[in-house]
C-alpha cells in the first residue's frame, strides 16, 4: 500500500477538525435575549427513534419558519419577538438526553420542547421541573410522567391509562358485538402501560380478555404469540407496539394466515410506509388517530389545518404525520400562552398553559390538571385503513367513512 498516515499527522488533523467549528463558528449562539424566544430541548434525530424524531423536528421547524418569515415574529406584551429552535440530538438515548437537557437548563433556556419516547421524556421532565422550567411535548404519554406531581410539564396526548377512552367506547358501539379480545404488547413502559389500560377498559365493558402476550422490546418474530392467537382467536386483537414492531406482527399474521375479525394496531397504520408495505392487505386495520387531515380546525398562527397543510407541503417533501402537526401545535400553544400571560415570565406562562382551551391545526388543545392531554377533548379518533387511505370511523359525528367490520380474512383481501 502507499505511505501510511503517521500518528502525529493523524492526531493533528483530528484536533484541527474538532477545533474548526469553534474557530469559525457553527452558527450564532442566540441567547434568551429581549427580542428572541428560544425553545430548547432534545430529540432522537439518530438512534431508534430517529424516524419520529425527524417528524417532530420538522413540525417545530415549520412553526418557527412560519412565525419568523410569514408573521415577522410574535407580539407578546406589546413587544415583538423572533422565535428560535435550539434542539439537540439525544440519539434516542435517555442518558444522553438528560445530560443535554441539564446543560440547557444551566444555560439560557426557559421553554422546553419534549423529546420522543416516555423513557426519555420522564427523566428529562424531572430535570426541567426541578429547575422550574416549562416543557410542552408531543412525544410521550406514560402515566408516570404525569403522576410525579410535576406542575411544569404538559403533554399533547392523554396519559396511557386514559388513552383508551375513545377506543373502548368504539368497541361498545360496533356490531356484531365483540365478545373477546387479546392484546400483544412489548416489554417497554409505553407498550405495557397501554396494554394494561386497554385490558382494563375492555374488561369494564364486558369483553373477555383471552391473552395479554408480551414480546421482547424489539420484535423480530411473533410466531409463538400468533400460534396462541390462532388457537384462541379473539374478536379483537390489539397491539400496543411501536410502528416497526406492529409491521413485523402484521406481516407475520398475513404470512401465517392468522386472521381476526378486527385488528387494532395502536401505532403503525398511521405511517404511509405501513400501508404501502401491506398494500390491499392493510384494508380493515384499525388505529388510533390523534389527528386527521380531513378535519379542519382553526389555528391562531396558521389560520386553519388546511392552511397549515398547504404551507407544510410547500416547504417540505417529507410526508406529514400527526407528530409533525402536533409539534407545530406545541409552539402555537406556547406562543398563545405567552400572549395570555402578557410576557415571558415562566410562572405566568405556566398558569396560562394550564388554563389553555383553544383550537389549533392539530385540533383542540386542553390539558388535564396533571398536564396530560384532556382525555375527552384531546382523545384520539378511531381510524381504519380503507383502500390504502385512512378514514375516520369513530366518533360517528366526525366519521369520513363507515366501519368495515368484521374484516375479511387476509387471503380474501386482494
Amino acid at each position: 500500500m502507499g505511505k501510511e498516515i503517521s500518528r502525529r499527522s493523524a492526531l493533528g488533523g483530528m484536533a484541527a477538525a474538532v477545533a474548526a467549528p469553534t474557530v469559525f463558528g457553527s452558527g450564532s449562539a442566540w441567547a434568551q435575549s429581549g427580542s428572541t424566544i428560544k425553545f430548547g430541548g432534545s430529540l432522537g434525530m439518530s438512534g431508534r427513534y430517529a424516524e419520529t424524531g425527524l417528524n417532530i423536528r420538522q413540525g417545530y421547524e415549520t412553526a418557527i419558519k412560519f412565525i419568523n418569515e410569514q408573521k415577522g415574529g410574535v407580539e407578546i406584551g406589546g413587544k415583538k419577538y423572533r422565535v428560535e429552535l435550539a434542539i439537540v440530538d439525544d440519539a434516542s438515548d435517555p442518558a444522553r438526553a438528560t445530560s443535554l437537557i441539564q446543560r440547557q437548563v444551566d444555560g439560557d433556556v426557559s421553554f422546553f420542547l419534549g423529546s420522543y419516547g416516555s423513557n426519555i421524556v420522564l427523566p428529562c421532565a424531572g430535570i426541567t421541573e426541578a429547575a422550574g422550567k416549562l416543557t410542552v411535548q408531543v412525544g410521550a404519554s406514560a402515566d408516570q410522567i404525569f403522576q410525579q406531581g410535576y406542575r411544569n410539564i404538559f403533554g399533547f396526548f392523554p396519559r396511557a391509562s386514559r388513552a383508551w377512552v375513545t377506543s373502548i367506547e368504539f368497541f361498545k358501539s360496533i356490531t356484531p358485538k365483540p365478545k373477546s379480545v387479546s392484546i400483544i404488547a412489548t416489554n417497554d413502559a409505553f407498550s405495557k402501560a397501554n396494554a394494561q389500560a386497554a385490558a382494563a377498559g375492555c374488561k369494564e365493558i364486558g369483553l373477555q380478555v383471552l391473552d395479554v402476550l408480551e414480546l421482547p422490546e424489539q420484535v423480530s418474530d411473533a410466531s409463538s404469540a400468533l400460534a396462541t392467537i390462532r388457537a384462541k382467536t379473539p374478536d379483537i386483537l390489539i397491539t400496543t407496539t411501536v410502528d416497526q414492531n406492529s409491521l413485523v406482527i402484521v406481516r407475520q399474521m398475513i404470512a401465517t394466515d392468522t386472521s381476526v375479525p378486527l385488528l387494532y394496531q395502536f401505532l403503525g397504520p398511521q405511517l404511509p410506509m405501513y400501508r404501502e408495505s401491506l398494500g390491499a392487505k392493510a384494508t380493515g386495520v384499525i388505529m388510533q388517530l390523534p389527528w386527521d387531515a380531513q378535519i379542519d380546525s382553526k389555528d391562531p398562527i396558521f389560520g386553519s389545518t388546511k392552511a397549515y397543510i398547504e404551507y407544510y407541503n410547500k416547504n417540505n417533501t417529507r410526508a406529514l404525520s400527526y407528530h409533525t402537526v402536533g409539534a407545530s401545535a406545541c409552539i402555537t400553544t406556547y406562543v398563545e400562552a405567552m400572549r395570555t400571560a402578557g410576557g415571558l415570565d415562566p410562572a405566568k406562562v405556566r398558569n396560562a398553559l394550564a388554563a389553555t382551551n383553544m383550537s389549533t391545526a392539530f385540533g383542540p388543545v386542553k390539558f388535564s390538571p396533571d398536564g396530560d392531554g384532556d382525555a375527552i377533548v384531546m382523545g384520539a379518533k378511531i381510524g381504519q385503513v380503507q383502500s390504502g387511505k385512512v378514514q375516520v370511523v369513530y366518533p360517528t359525528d366526525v366519521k369520513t367513512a363507515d366501519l368495515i367490520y368484521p374484516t375479511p380474512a387476509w387471503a380474501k383481501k386482494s
Partner: protein
Amino acid sequence: MNATLLLQTLVDGLILGGIFSLSAVGFSLIFGVLGVVNLAHGVFILAGAYLGLWLKGALGLDPLAAIPVVFLILAVIGGALQQTLVSAAIRRGSLMTSLLITFGASLILRDLLILAFGPDIQSLSSTWLLRTYHVGGVVIDGARATGLLASLVLLAVLAVALHAMKVGRAIRATAQQSFAAGLCGVDSNWIYMLTFGVSAGFAGASGIIIGMINPFSPFDDAYWTLNAFVTVVLGGIGSPVGALLGGLMLGEISTLSSQYIGPRFPNVFIFCALLLMLIVRPNGLLGNAYKASV
C-alpha cells in the same frame, strides 16, 4: 402438551433459525479466517437490504434477482474496508484493535445509510416469496420459509466454494496456517481481503432476504451483529454448517421458550444457552473449522 402446538413451535423454530443462520454466514467466515469480530456485520446486512430497495426503485429489479448485484457491490466495499482499515489496525495494534475499528466503521456506515436513505422504516417485497402452507394443523410461514431455503442455498454455495474451489482451499489454508500457506505461494493479504469481501457480500445477500421478511431501519445493525455472534458461538467458528446448526439451535430456543415459558423470555434463554456453550464447549458445536494445525 398439545402435540400440534409443539410441532408448530418446532417448525417455527426451524424457519426462524434459517434467518439467524443467514445473518451469520459472513460473520462466521471472517471470524474463522481472520480472527476478527466484525462489528460492522449488521450494517453490511442492512446495506444489502437498502441496496435491494434502491435497485427495486431505480431499475424495477426484484430483490431476489438483485442478490448477485448486491453481493458484488458489498464484496468490493468489504474488501476495501479490510485493506484500508482492518489490516492497518491489526498491523499497528492488535486483533482487539480491529474490534474498535469495525465498531467505528459500523457507526460511519450507519450514518451514511441514514444520509442516503433516511431514518425511516422500510421493507422489501418480492413476487417470488413462497405462499403460506397448511400441513396437518401446522402453518408454514411462506415468507420465512423462503428465508430458510435461501440460507440453505447460500450456505451450500459457500461450502462448495470453500471445499471444491482452489480459492476456497487457499482460504482454508491461510486460516489454518498463514505462514505455511504463504510458503506454498498463497498471498495471505489477498486472501484476507477476499474473505472480508466475500463475507460482506454474503451479509448483503442475506440482508435482502431479511428485508423481505422483516421491516428494517438503519438502527437494527446491532441486533443482527449480536444474532450473528451468538449463532457463530453456538454453532462453531468458520464453518457454514456450524452457522446453520447454530442458527437452527437459536431459532428453536427462541420459539420453544416463547411458547412454553413466555413470549418475553427468548432473549434470556438465548443468552443462557450462549453461556452454557461457552462453559461446556467454548468452540461451539462443530468447533473451530480452521483450528490452526501444529
